[in-house]
């Protein structure tokens, strides 16, 4: 055994490795190798060069969580490993903890990042792009990656420092509520974007803006169809073929 605390360098290496968590994503055990790859610097600092085979095997099982929350799980796991190595009695061992938290963190991350932050950042980017500005991709990347990178870094530190109490800290952040607020903001921005496009369309066709309101039921109909499982591809084919046919006929 070398030391039971994780050095800053080890944490930095783990942070960087977290960007490769899903390099070997597979159907069988999803992120299993990625998780071991992520915690290896920490395991080396605990066990030295020769990590016992049973420790490696223990962490190589099925693993699936949101990639941005994986560093938090990894930080906590290593603290639990360190305490177990020091001979302390643990209320929850590393393996049980991993299986307990990966699904809730996956659900929380999916709702927050894929369902909340990403669509919101994309819509802001699109509104910038609609003005013909090449800053749109930069705006999108900055808006999305600020919370992303902070989440990875703070998660790792939180797990490594607070161990099991990290879950309480995350709970206090009320991330599911934040995800809902972000989704509501996205919905508002969708409305703003559709209205803007409708206005520009009327202006271009020299029509009264009143005609722009006709777009509202059309978008709602398509949204209902999408909600019922109609694919975007089908909707694209439906609208574009209708518009092309109209253009050919008239």
């Amino acid at each position: 055994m070398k030391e039971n605390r994780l050095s800053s360098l080890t944490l930095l290496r783990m942070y960087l490795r977290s960007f490769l968590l899903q390099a070997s994503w597979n159907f069988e055990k999803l992120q299993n190798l990625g998780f071991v790859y992520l915690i290896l610097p920490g395991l080396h600092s605990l066990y030295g060069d020769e990590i016992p085979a049973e420790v490696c095997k223990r962490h190589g099982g099925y693993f699936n969580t949101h990639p941005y929350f994986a560093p938090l799980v990894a930080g906590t796991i290593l603290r639990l490993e360190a305490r177990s190595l020091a001979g302390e009695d643990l209320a929850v061992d590393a393996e049980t903890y991993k299986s307990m938290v990966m699904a809730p963190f996956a659900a929380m991350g999916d709702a927050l990042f894929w369902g909340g932050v990403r669509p919101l950042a994309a819509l802001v980017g699109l509104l910038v792009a609609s003005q013909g500005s090449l800053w749109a991709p930069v705006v999108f990347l900055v808006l999305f990656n600020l919370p992303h990178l902070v989440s990875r870094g703070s998660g790792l530190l939180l797990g490594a420092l607070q161990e099991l109490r990290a879950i309480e800290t995350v709970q206090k952040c009320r991330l599911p509520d934040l995800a809902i607020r972000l989704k509501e903001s996205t919905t508002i921005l969708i409305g703003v974007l559709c209205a803007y496009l409708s206005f520009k369309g009327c202006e271009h066709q020299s029509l009264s803006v009143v005609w722009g309101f006709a777009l509202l039921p059309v978008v709602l109909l398509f949204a209902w169809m999408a909600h019922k499982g109609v694919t975007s591809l089908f909707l694209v084919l439906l609208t574009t073929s209708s518009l092309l046919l109209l253009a050919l006929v008239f």
Partner: protein
Amino acid sequence: MVIGDYLLAGLVAMLTGLDRVALVQVMISRPLVAAPLTGWLLGHPMVGLEVGMLLELLWLGRLPVGAAIPPDDTQVAIGATVLTLSVGPMLGLHGMPFVILAVLIAIPLGKFGQVFDRLARHVNDRLAVSGERALAAGRTRVMERYHLLGLASFSLASLATALVIVLVGSLILYEAAPFLIGAVRKAGLSLQYSLILVGAASLLGTINVNRSISLFCAAFTGTLLVLWLR
């Protein structure tokens, strides 16, 4: 476009393809970023921006959760940008109507991305088995190598998707563009906006939050009134 441009586009396809799942995930794989980046490297960033705008919302509501594989909008965006810049000048066609046509041809070909992505993950199944074996033997360095090899399968899958979109898309465009470009020009702005609006509607339909319809209607009506009355 010269050979070097195609190689550059292939490199972007592989790098941004990795960003979808395997590496970093800073979202350079989103059409709004990948297409302008491709366009910029090929000397026409505005073409890329136009492509990115049309495609960004289309599959944004499809979450990359668990084993779900959404259509490859990254390669559709890159492919459509390359098609616009390679086939357009050869046919003497340019401008927004040709961008729309290239995007419309590229969109269905995005389905190939799902096939190649699935294939890459099956290759990774084998890597994972070998990696686990190395792990059980305590050979962590070997396990790391197997893990990183997964990047190769994902990047090759992305490259294959981009190739299919560009090759098949070029053939279709050569044949169909002379017939369709007139209708696309005539439909013009409505066709351009319809793609964005379908994306917006798809996102709205899958956003899964209470009051979404009332919030959308209020924002739509309020914005249109403000724009009308200002």
